[in-house]
């Protein structure tokens, strides 16, 4: 009798548990992002807040390698569901995904407070393909100079308020570097005037930020990317001369973090990279010692902006939820300010930049951003980046002249598909 009762109770219990489990069955929401996003972006907190409004959702995170595009492309091409949101590529790679018809557009949700005119145009343009927005900017950056105010003050390069006087020309900037560089008795540099990021991940942005600032356009008179103007030659001569004279460090040739590490350790007095580093370096050396300095003429002509992008694949199983998460949490004010205050990273909405305009760093960034442009979308973007990196590295390290460098880039890029 007892045995029968026990079995009945056991069956009822198991049924009850199963029913309860079914009742609270949750939607698994998959997010794939490059590993570093999990360190810098408050993704977990965003998920918690999102779950409050959408209790049926549970998050599953996957870390991807940097620019891990090919595996995703293969998986999505085979209709595999591996993510609802993927944050693994720059908009130039989004072009490839869009060409294959693998990602969804955001046109239906870019309304009201998220309407297209509410975004910083450079970044949203980057994510726009054939008139439709296929990606949402993440990690939006503006190429600029970041400099140590204390070193500049020692070198007599500051005004009465202690702010660095912006150099007006490349010659001015060269004089700054001479004053900021310190060498020992043997002539070995012990503090570089500048560290320029020439890593493959930055090269195209670094080069064209100089061209845009100096010329006000990145195109030559024929409408092609500029590798022929006087300013292009001046820029390469400036870099090569700076390296030869020991004023500019080449740490980035083997380590993309070299420039920021040299700034943190005091081995470089300034750097040519993206604006966000000012916050990261400030955490080590003190924010009061750093300043964003426009590349010569950048206040008039602007510079280059670039961003990473967030995409939603067509194979996603929670597309509506994914779009909601992107707008409600990923672009929420608290999320954006956390990124700006802690890592200097912008997202893309104008109101976030406006909201921090009381701080000098963001004031300067806001001014520079007004004329800032993004690079065109090119089918052979990756080939052009590698070509420029190889040739400019050859110039910096192998005695190739700037004239030869530009000629090689022109000749080799003529075979590439650089459709705007």
């Amino acid at each position, binding site marked *: 009798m007892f045995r029968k009762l026990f079995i009945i109770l056991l069956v009822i219990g198991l049924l009850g548990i199963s029913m309860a489990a079914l009742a609270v069955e949750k939607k698994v929401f998959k997010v794939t992002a490059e590993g570093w996003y999990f360190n810098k972006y408050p993704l977990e907190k965003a998920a918690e807040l999102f779950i409050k409004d959408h209790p049926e959702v549970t998050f599953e995170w996957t870390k991807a390698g940097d620019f891990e595009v090919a595996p995703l492309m293969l998986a999505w091409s085979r209709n595999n569901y591996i993510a609802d949101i993927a944050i693994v590529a720059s908009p130039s790679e989004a072009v490839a995904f869009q*060409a294959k018809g693998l990602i969804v557009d955001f046109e239906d949700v870019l309304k009201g407070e998220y309407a297209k005119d509410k975004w910083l145009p450079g970044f949203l343009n980057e994510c726009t393909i054939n008139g439709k927005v296929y990606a949402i900017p993440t990690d939006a950056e503006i190429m600029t100079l970041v400099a140590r105010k204390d070193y500049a003050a020692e070198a007599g390069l500051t005004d009465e308020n202690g702010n660095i006087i912006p150099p007006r020309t490349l010659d001015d900037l060269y004089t700054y570097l001479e004053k900021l560089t310190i060498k020992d008795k043997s002539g070995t540099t012990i503090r570089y005037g500048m560290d320029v990021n020439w890593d*493959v991940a930055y090269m195209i942005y670094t080069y064209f930020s100089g061209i845009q600032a100096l010329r006000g356009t990145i195109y030559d008179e024929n409408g092609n990317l500029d590798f022929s103007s006087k300013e292009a030659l001046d820029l390469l001569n400036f870099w090569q001369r700076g390296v030869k004279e020991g004023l500019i460090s080449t740490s980035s040739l*083997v*380590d993309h973090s070299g420039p920021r*590490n040299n700034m943190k350790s005091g081995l470089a007095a300034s750097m040519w990279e993206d604006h966000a580093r000012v916050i990261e370096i400030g955490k080590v050396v003190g924010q009061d010692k750093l300043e964003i300095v426009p590349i010569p003429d950048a206040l008039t002509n602007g510079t280059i902006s670039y961003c990473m992008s967030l995409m939603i694949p067509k194979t996603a199983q929670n597309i509506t939820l994914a779009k909601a998460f992107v707008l409600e949490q990923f672009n929420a004010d608290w999320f954006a300010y956390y990124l700006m205050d802690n890592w200097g990273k912008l997202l893309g909405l104008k109101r976030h930049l406006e909201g921090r305009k009381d701080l000098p760093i963001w004031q300067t960034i806001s001014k520079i951003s007004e004329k800032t442009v993004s690079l065109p979308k090119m089918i052979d973007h*990756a080939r052009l980046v590698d070509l420029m990196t190889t*040739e400019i590295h050859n110039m910096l*390290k*192998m005695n190739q002249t700037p004239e030869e460098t530009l000629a090689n880039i022109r000749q080799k890029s003529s075979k590439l598909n650089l459709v705007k």
Partner: protein
Amino acid sequence: MVNNRTKISNITPWLFILPSLLIIGIFLLYPLTNSIYLSLTNYNFVYSDKPEFIGFENFENFFSDSYFMVALKNTFYYTLVFFPLLILFSFLLALLLNSKIKGVGLFQSAILLPIVVPLSLAGVMFTWILTENFGILNHLLGNILRLPQLTHFWLGEKETALNSLVAVGLWKYVGFSVILFLCGLKSIPSDIYEAAKVDGANPFQRLIYITIPNLRGSFLLVGIWSIIQAIKVYDQVVVMTKGGPGNSTMVLYLYAWKNAFEYFDMGYAQAIALFTGALAFIISVSFNIILKPERK
């Protein structure tokens, strides 16, 4: 009845090797055949609808592709430096470990330890060791040994970058080739040495006339293995230099990878990969023919 038994006994061996054949067919022959086919096509897997057959055009393009030629030259250089140095170092270390010196066990562990370190991790470690401003090597040379003229931007200078990669490869692979040489040394009968001693042969003569000829098989094995390792060098280049500065450390497999997964040009990438594989095969076979003991 007998006929049936013969038939079954004829089929049985095939049944035993069937699983292996299937595995080889699925995971080796099919990809290889597909790879050969793709190498004869123009196929960008993002922008092309399907592969377009172009014959040997991808292979012909090698000669007009200056970056390919640089990658080929660098791969040859890496192989030509790595292969003899690996043989020399591992042979000398094996001789040392085979001797009866005190503390040889500890030394043996130290040499064999790099085998268990993943090459990618070793790459990261050496990147830090070789860093210009904060690296241990430059600190040792400049500050401790007081030889600042020997300090370099090891991975950032054209003259030292590829040689630094060779050094990391040697550190990583020397342990394994030492094992191969040690096996050869242990298999040489001691009575040959004893007879030679009786005949008055000095240690150098014993090395030249007994040890080296008896290690021909080990030399062959280490030689072929090191050539293959050198031609397919990839990991440490990706981790340490990504082919730079400029293209001074660009090697064939990295160039193939770039074409495949950065430029999505699968046809050309397959052609480079096949060429590299064929190169390793031809050099290994040649080495085998040269060093293989003659049949008497």
